[in-house]
Each structure stands twice: as C-alpha cells, then as structure tokens.
C-alpha cells in the first residue's frame, strides 16, 4: 500500500492528471481527473472511515435507495499521490448545479435527503461529518449525495458536527425564502458556507420565533453561537461537557426533518408564472413552434446529448428535447417558473431535465477560494445545443446587449444554436419599447442575420406560422 504508483509507471505512459479544485478542503481524500476520467482518491487517514462505510452495509443501503452516488474501486496504480489507500471511480453526474441555482423545492429535497442519509448512517453506527448543500447534485431527476468520504464512525454521546453547517446551508435559506422573500435564496451565492445564522435570525420575521423548530434551530442557535463565540479559546473544556445521547441526536434530526417539511413556499405572482397565458401566441403558432423545434433538433447529427434551454420558463420546449433522450438544462430567471418546472419533472418522473434558476444577464460566477471552488455557468459548458426561444428581445432590448455581442456569447456556449428572432413589430417587443427610448435601430432581422453569420452558419430557418417570428437553426463555424 505504500508503493508509489507513479514510480512504477514508465515515464512515457504518465497521463495527464488534474485535481478538482473544489475538493481541497477534506484531508480524507479528493477528486481528480486522469485523462477524461473522474476519480476519487481515498487517503490513508480516511481509510478506516471508508472501510466502515463499505463493510457496515451502509454504502449498499444508501446506493440501493438512490441516496448516495455509486462508485467502483479501481486499481491503486491510478492514484494521484502516495497518500492513497483506495481509488474510486464514481458514477458521473452529467450536469453540475449549485444551491443558488435551485428552486425552493430542489433545495428542500436536497435538505431532506441529507437528513435521511444521516438517519440511515446512525442506524449503521456512522454519522455525516459535513452537511454541505454542495454535496448534493441532481442525477436522473433526483437529488443524490455525491461525497463518499463524508462519513465517519458515530462516537457515543457526540453531538452532530455538521449541525451548524446543515442549518446554514439548508434551514436558514429555506426559512428565509419561505417567510421573507424567495429571492433571499441568492444569499447562498454570497455566502459559500451557507447563510450565517445571526443574519438569518435578523432577517426572519418575528412570527418565526413562535415556531418551536425555527426558534431553536435558528434563533436560539444564533444566540448560542454569539454567546460562545468568545469562549473558543477555552472551548475544549466546554466541549468536554457536551453530551448528546443517541436518542437525543435522533430527536434533533427528527426535529430538523419536521422543520424542513413544514416549510412551504406559497408564491405570489412573479414576472413569468403565467407567461404562457399572456403570450401573444395563439395555440396554432405555439403548436407550429413546437413542431419546428422538434424537427430542427432531429436534423442535428450526431444526435445531441446535452441541451441548454435558456429562458425555458416552465420547460415546455425543454421537454421536446428531453423526450428525444437528450439531457436538458432548463434555465430561467423566474423562481416560480423553475419551481413549477421542477414540480413537473417530479410529477412526471422525468429523468433528464434539470431545472435551474439562472439570470442570463448576470450568470453564476466562479466562486470560492481562488475563484475555483464553484464553476461559473460558462465553465460548465459548452453544450451540444443552445436553445434561445423568445429570449433575444429581452437581452437585446431590456438588457441593451448589441447583437454582435449576443452572437459571440452564444457561440461560446454551444455547437448548435436554436434561436427565435422576435421582430420589432411583435407585441412583446412593442411592450418592451413602450417604456424606453427607442435607441435600438439596429434591432432588425437583417442585422441579426449578419451579426450571427460571423460566428454561425445557417442550417435552416422558418417563420413561425401565425406570427412574425422566425426560428433559426445555426451551426458554429
């Protein structure tokens, strides 16, 4: 086990390896790429924990219930460094998303499976050592835990070490979204280790103090943190006195489950929720647009596997691509539309649509230490096909992006672009122009075609029946 795999390998066959920047924090192991393959190294110091996970039956139980990402053990020669005692090849998650890109229910489901995993772990004599929302991804339409090295043996009378992290990553944002404003979920973007509890406590309305679960896990929790903040130097003495029985620990987890379950988002009317009723399409042109989208997607060869639907609303057109077996990132700026989209994927048991909350005028940046813990939206691309339906007028007029810039942006995002041009005469554009000075002389169909011709060649275009809009299929040059 102590041999150095790199020394044994002939120099000529040394492959390109690269660690995944987001996994530097855990001394127990990390992710790395060997060529195109994602591997996870288990370090010697985490060996006992990992072996207990595998031998106790916990791994099998969690994988069987679809709660934990499955992996295969591969040859130790694949290891990245000498510290390795095991090398794992986890099942790949095709599309990475982050908590600030999830709808309310996506974050809620992520919270509930984290707690479910902790409950199962306790049954098998183990415990989660962290409860980061970034340990959850969506695979086949369901939330799944991806950090195989987050388990440690349960020690008698120990409290849950990840309790604070759970409250910061899940309970605080969900409570704020539910009781104050859905947009406060975006605080997760500025606070990479979850929303500080004192901040959450300040922002939450008074009535949350009359709910026992929120009173204890958020408000009193924040107060307790403040009270003991200065006791940190002397904390080892204080902590020795902290005893939580197994039954007490289970009670806390059970209370967190009830707290999370009881949080329901009852949305007010947001911008786009009833867009499909307010749109100027009559049903005939909508039907024709669907047919065209389907036909254009069929023309792409080889058949695309990954599609990014920008401004997807509740995912009507995403589902056309998904029905063809493509994985679809279904992105919209409106939390309500993303929520409805996610509810639909759950109700219909759709495996290949990932609803995401994305503001394209200010997309997710690279975050964290050295800008490399969380990838920007662009870093996670490019995709095979970008769909931009009924979107361009919002970017060109509401957000003042010139058409050549839009063309360059889209050319960086994907190989093919399925884009709808919405002319000035369209009622939606007129509505946007009604409240603005019209400085958009360049916003014409011929300018659009010229601007995009710099980066794309046109495969096909067709006017949508019963409207003045045109749908284009473009291929990157």
């Amino acid at each position, binding site marked *: 086990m102590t041999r150095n795999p790199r020394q044994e390998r002939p120099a000529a066959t040394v492959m390109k390896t690269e660690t995944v920047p987001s996994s530097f*924090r*855990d*001394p*127990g192991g990390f992710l790395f790429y060997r060529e195109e393959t994602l591997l996870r190294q288990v370090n010697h110091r985490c060996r006992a924990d990992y072996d207990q996970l595998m031998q106790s039956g916990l791994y099998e139980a969690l994988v069987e219930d679809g709660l934990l990402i499955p992996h295969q053990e591969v040859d130790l020669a694949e290891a990245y460094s000498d510290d390795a005692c095991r090398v794992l090849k986890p099942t790949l998650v095709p599309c990475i998303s982050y908590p600030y890109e999830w709808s309310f229910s996506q974050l809620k489901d992520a919270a509930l499976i984290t707690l479910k995993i902790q409950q199962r772990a306790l*049954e098998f004599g183990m415990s989660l*050592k*962290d409860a980061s929302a970034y340990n959850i991804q969506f695979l086949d339409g369901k939330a799944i835990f991806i950090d195989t090295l987050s388990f*440690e043996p349960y*020690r*008698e*009378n*120990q*409290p*849950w*070490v*990840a*309790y*604070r*992290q759970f*409250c910061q990553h899940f309970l605080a944002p969900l409570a704020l979204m539910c009781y104050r404003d859905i947009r406060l979920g975006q605080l997760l973007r500025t606070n990479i280790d979850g929303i500080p509890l004192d901040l959450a406590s300040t922002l939450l309305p008074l009535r949350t103090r009359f709910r026992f679960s929120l009173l*204890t*896990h958020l408000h*009193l*929790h924040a107060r*307790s*943190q*403040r*009270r*003991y*903040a200065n*006791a*940190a130097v002397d*904390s*080892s003495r*204080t*902590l*020795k*006195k*902290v*005893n*939580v*029985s197994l*039954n*007490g*620990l*289970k*009670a*806390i987890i*059970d*209370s967190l489950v009830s707290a999370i379950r009881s949080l329901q988002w009852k949305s007010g009317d947001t911008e786009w929720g009833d867009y499909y009723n307010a749109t100027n399409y009559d049903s005939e042109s909508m039907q024709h647009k669907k047919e065209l989208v389907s036909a254009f997607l069929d023309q792409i060869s080889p058949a695309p596997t990954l599609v990014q639907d920008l401004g997807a609303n509740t995912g009507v057109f995403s589902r056309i691509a998904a029905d063809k077996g493509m994985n679809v990132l279904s992105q919209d700026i409106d939390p309500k539309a993303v929520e409805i989209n996610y509810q639909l994927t759950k109700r219909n048991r759709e495996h290949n649509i990932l609803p995401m909350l994305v503001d394209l005028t200010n997309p997710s940046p690279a975050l964290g230490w050295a800008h490399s813990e969380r990838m920007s939206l662009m870093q996670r691309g490019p995709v095979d096909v970008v769909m931009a339906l009924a979107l361009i007028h919002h970017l060109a007029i509401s957000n003042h992006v010139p058409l050549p810039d839009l063309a360059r942006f889209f050319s960086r995002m994907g190989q093919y672009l399925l884009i709808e041009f919405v002319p000035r005469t369209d009622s939606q554009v007129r509505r946007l122009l009604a409240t603005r000075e019209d400085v958009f002389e360049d916003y014409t169909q011929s300018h659009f075609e010229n601007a995009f011709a710099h980066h794309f060649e046109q495969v096909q275009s067709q006017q949508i029946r019963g409207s003045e809009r045109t749908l284009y299929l473009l291929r990157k040059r």
Partner: protein
Amino acid sequence: MAFSNSAFAYIDPGTGSMVLQMAVAGILAGLFYIKTAWSRIRFFFTNLFSREKDDAKPPAGETGRNSDED
C-alpha cells in the same frame, strides 16, 4: 472525554452549535421517545389488522426500519 477532538479537525462545528444541541436534545429526546414508541404501537396494530384482513405482509421498508432501530 465525551468524544474525540479529531471530529473537529475538518469543519468548525462552533462551540455554540454544540452547546445548543445538548440543550435541544434534552428537550426533544423525551418527546422523540414517545413518538417512536407510539409509532411502534401503531405499527403493531396496523400490522395485526392488515394481517387479519388479507394476510398481507407489511411494506418491506417499514419492517426494515423498525428492526434496525435501537
């Protein structure tokens, strides 16, 4: 020594969070015990009656969960 310090090597759990857990556990443990006991009693009778009705087995998940506890 109640637990090993190594548990805190990786993320900072915060002293306040630990102390609060002890307080909350004290309040909730009793209620949780009653809740668990009650669900067991309920399960016992549901099981009894459903067996009387159609001799059907309880859902696999339910049996598994109860047999694993404690």
